[in-house]
């Protein structure tokens, strides 16, 4: 089957998406596929999306994928739901390292219930790709043991691009959910979509059910806050850029009456035009605005 896929790719001028869900590639097929994609001919195709859901990919297949991912600059979306790889410590480390060295923006590992905390604790602890925007971890057997690693990840700059996180259908208890939400409240202003549905048993007491409802309401408030802030930051960054361009791309002069202001004062003045931006954000916008090479 894998050789047939390779033949089809070879016969086409350009292939950008590989949607191979439910294709029973197994480890052997994955190895053939990724060996080809790593070859000179395979690399001619700028593959941006790979879906390998329910292919029964095991550890050997995942290792082959890691070799392909390492340093890959074209792949953006990677979906590996419902496969057979295990939480082998060395393999987790290799996989995380490969993700960190790639430009993957969307990673789906959902429905790999065999992985559990043994995979996700080291994975989340070492995950630091600045590109990752969407992480789907539904039904992967997460328990309260993974929550500290998860909290550490979403609280740190390692997750600075992450806007979407799915944690549905895991086994995260209410107390851990509360800790997670508190961490989002205090430290995370990027997530705009976060799902925590079906993390409870079906025979909940009315009181426990009300707790979950309260959690859902709380997370919706946090996500609304983040969405509002991200829109505000975007709007103010553009506003600042509009004002900063003519000021910072010019040359300050000593007029007959007006004194020449140093660049740091000009930047400080401009920062008052966008009060929602942090100093670091202002500095980044002003650096960009004052760089002629960024003009379109």
């Amino acid at each position, binding site marked *: 089957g894998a050789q047939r896929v390779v033949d089809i790719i070879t016969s086409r001028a350009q292939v950008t998406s590989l949607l191979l869900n439910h294709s029973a590639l197994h480890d052997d097929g994955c190895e053939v596929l990724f060996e080809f994609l790593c070859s000179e001919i395979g690399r001619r195709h700028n593959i941006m999306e790979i879906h390998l859901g329910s292919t029964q990919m095991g550890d050997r297949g995942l290792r082959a994928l890691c070799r392909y991912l390492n340093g890959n600059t074209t792949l953006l979306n990677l979906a590996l739901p419902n496969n057979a790889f295990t939480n082998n410590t060395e393999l987790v480390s290799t996989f995380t390292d490969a993700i960190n060295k790639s430009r993957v923006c969307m990673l789906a590992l959902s429905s790999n219930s065999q992985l559990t905390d043994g995979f996700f604790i080291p994975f989340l602890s070492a995950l630091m790709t600045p590109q990752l925007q969407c992480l789907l971890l539904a039904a992967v057997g997460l328990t309260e043991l993974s929550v500290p690693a998860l909290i550490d990840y979403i609280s740190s700059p390692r997750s600075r691009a992450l806007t979407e996180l799915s944690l549905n259908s895991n086994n995260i208890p209410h107390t851990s959910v509360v800790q997670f939400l508190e961490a989002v409240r205090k430290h995370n202003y990027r997530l705009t979509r976060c799902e925590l549905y079906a993390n409870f048993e079906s025979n909940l007491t009315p009181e426990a059910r009300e707790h979950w409802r309260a959690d859902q309401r709380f997370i919706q408030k946090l996500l609304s806050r983040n969405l509002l802030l991200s829109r505000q930051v975007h709007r103010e960054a553009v506003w600042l850029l509009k*004002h900063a361009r003519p*000021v910072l791309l*010019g040359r*300050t002069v000593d007029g007959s009456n*007006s*004194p020449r202001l140093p660049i740091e004062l000009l930047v400080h003045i401009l920062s008052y035009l966008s009060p929602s931006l942090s100093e670091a954000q202002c500095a980044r916008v002003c650096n960009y605005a004052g760089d002629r090479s960024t003009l379109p």
Partner: protein
Amino acid sequence: MPTIVSVDDSTVPGEGSSRLLLLVSSDNKHIVVEEDIMSRSRFISKQVEGFEATSQRHAILLPFSSFVLNKVIEYCSHYRGYYLLEDDPDAAPPGRSPVREWDQEFLDVDRNMLLRIIKAAHYLEIKSLVGSCARAIADMIRGKTTEEMREILGVENDFTPEEEHSPSSKCTG
């Protein structure tokens, strides 16, 4: 760097609870001011520390006019004894200065004067005054055209006529 000249003790009578400093403006006006008042300026504080190390009193020459210097002294006098977070060297950077009603009235001056005050405050390292001036100037340029902003801030167009007509430079407007 400021020029420091030695002065006689009689020029600076600094024997009270708050010693006196002699500040000399660029138009050669000598202004005597209490050290306490100017302690908000980190630049002046560092100079005073230097005097104590050498056990000699000096006049501090400043590169701005007496008119501007008097405005800065007026600001420092008003906030004498006040704690302003922006001026605390040990506090974490507070970000942008808050709006203070008195500052708004104090800075109700013409554009050139405002630019001179912010430059002097920057030189003297009075962060609260720099912040208040920056806020006032930002309000002046908000929503202005490219030319108006450049005029207010004393910025000259740095594009050649050829660049001015290229698609890239139009993005600055």
